[in-house]
């Protein structure tokens, strides 16, 4: 039959254990670091959107691969947008010039 571990089996050993002290040196800024971590934990519950955005910006845009990809995407979008805009403008220009030419040679022609 096993003895109950919560009951002191040996009073002498119990007394000896109660006198034991850990002889260990903590780092110099241990206390400071503990308080800083506590402060961060407290603050994380109420992080503002602006702070989150700042963190995200710094996190994403300072990574070379991400910033390069971002630049390439915007470059591509700009090139494509310029091409499509110019194509649309070319079509409008062609219609305008067709109308001008026809208007110049047809006495009956007039815009509605």
């Amino acid at each position: 039959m096993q003895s109950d571990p919560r009951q002191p089996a040996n009073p002498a050993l119990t007394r000896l254990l109660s006198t034991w002290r850990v002889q260990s040196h903590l780092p110099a800024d241990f206390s400071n670091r503990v308080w800083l971590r506590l402060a961060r934990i407290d603050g994380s519950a109420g992080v503002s959107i602006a702070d989150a955005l700042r963190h995200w910006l710094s996190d994403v845009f300072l990574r070379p691969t991400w910033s390069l990809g971002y630049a390439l995407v915007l470059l591509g979008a700009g090139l494509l947008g310029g091409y499509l805009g110019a194509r649309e403008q070319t079509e409008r220009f062609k219609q305008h010039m067709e109308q001008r030419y026809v208007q110049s040679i047809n006495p009956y022609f007039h815009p509605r």
Partner: protein
Amino acid sequence: MNGSRLTRAIAILLAGVLLGLVAWGGVYWTLTAPHRAILREHHPELAWLQLEFNLSPAEFERISALHRAYLPYCEELCERIAAHHNDIRHLVQQSTELTPEIQSLLEEAARVRIECQQMMLDHFFAVSRAMSPEQGRRYLAWVQEKTFHMDHERTAPAGFHTGHGPADHRHHRHH
């Protein structure tokens, strides 16, 4: 947070946007440069014709000369059409039936219309002959579709049209 890190991140963000805008503007400006060059010409519609039908300088000169020679006749017809239009409208407003005067003016307007179409066709053939055969055929098909189709779609016969008449044909812009 480190402020300089954030500043660098924002600088990269803005530089990317600027890069996109510059790319957009550069491509758009380059591809539309010929349009601006055409609009700076004395007769932009002729400059456009040269580009559209790939005319050589000699062809362009011949067609420009034909165009310049044609314009006074075109303008004269335009004025006659406008005068007929006004006369017909005036008489119709004052009458309650088809009078001999109105009938006479309508017949005269029809004759002017035939004359106008003959003159235009003659000019179109002359212009098409001044081009290479292939471009000439393309020009004829295009200009007939544009002029006679628009004539039918946009104006009433012999200028008998309420609201806007052939007088709106703005010769002063092109002649």
